[in-house]
């Protein structure tokens, strides 16, 4: 069984699928990070968020990040990483990360590593839709500087 599952999804993300993937008789710890749409940002009431993504590179970067987490924290760890593409209303789940390991420490570290690296490296963009009818693409992290 592959230790890694990654996906950019156009359908609602499943927490159950994530938990099932990283579960296993050898694992005594499962950890999960769930990102969801909140109703405010920087003092502005938010109605919804739309996610744009460069799909081919997302899949590659997601797998790279999970591979790195396994190498850093536990060679037997299982990692699950999915991100939504499209519009989500308040409470909608944008990202699900799950990590399973024999012990708890690698799962905490792995979850944290994966979400932080995703935010820096995955070609995904967030557009907030505000209650007043305005919308805005959010500023973010510059990707690698190889070509600038």
């Amino acid at each position: 069984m592959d230790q890694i599952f990654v996906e950019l999804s156009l359908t609602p993300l499943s927490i159950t699928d994530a938990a099932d993937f990283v579960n296993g008789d050898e694992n005594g710890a499962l950890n999960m990070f769930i990102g969801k749409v909140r109703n405010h940002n920087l003092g502005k009431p938010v109605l919804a968020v739309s996610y744009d993504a460069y799909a081919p590179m997302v899949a590659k970067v997601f797998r790279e990040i999970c591979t790195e987490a396994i190498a850093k924290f536990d060679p037997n760890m299982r990692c699950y990483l999915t991100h939504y593409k499209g519009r989500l209303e308040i409470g909608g789940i944008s990202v699900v990360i799950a990590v399973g390991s024999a012990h708890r420490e690698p799962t905490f570290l792995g979850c944290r590593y994966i979400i932080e690296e995703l935010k820096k490296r995955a070609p995904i963009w967030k557009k907030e839709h505000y209650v007043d009818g305005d919308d805005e693409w959010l500023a973010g992290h510059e990707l690698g500087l190889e070509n600038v």
Partner: protein
Amino acid sequence: MGSCWVFSMTTNHKVKVALFGTFRNYTAANPIELSLPDGANIADVKAALILALEISDNYAPIEALVQTSALADDYTILSRDFTLNGDVNLAILPPVSGG
């Protein structure tokens, strides 16, 4: 007195650049198609992209955004030594904000 004509033999290539995130605000044409000479580098592609986007709409100046964005093929951010040697499909990736 005879005339002397010098012909340039430079070959131009089609460079299609897919737009994401805030770049989608600048034009309905996506991907945007550029024509660039053989040997063009990253700076040349970005300069042509700035020109194309500036004339495509009246949004705020685009140069700073292009310069802080990465050019990529399907799977990889282009390396600094990229040079154009044929038609190519690229993407311009603005600063990211997933999660």
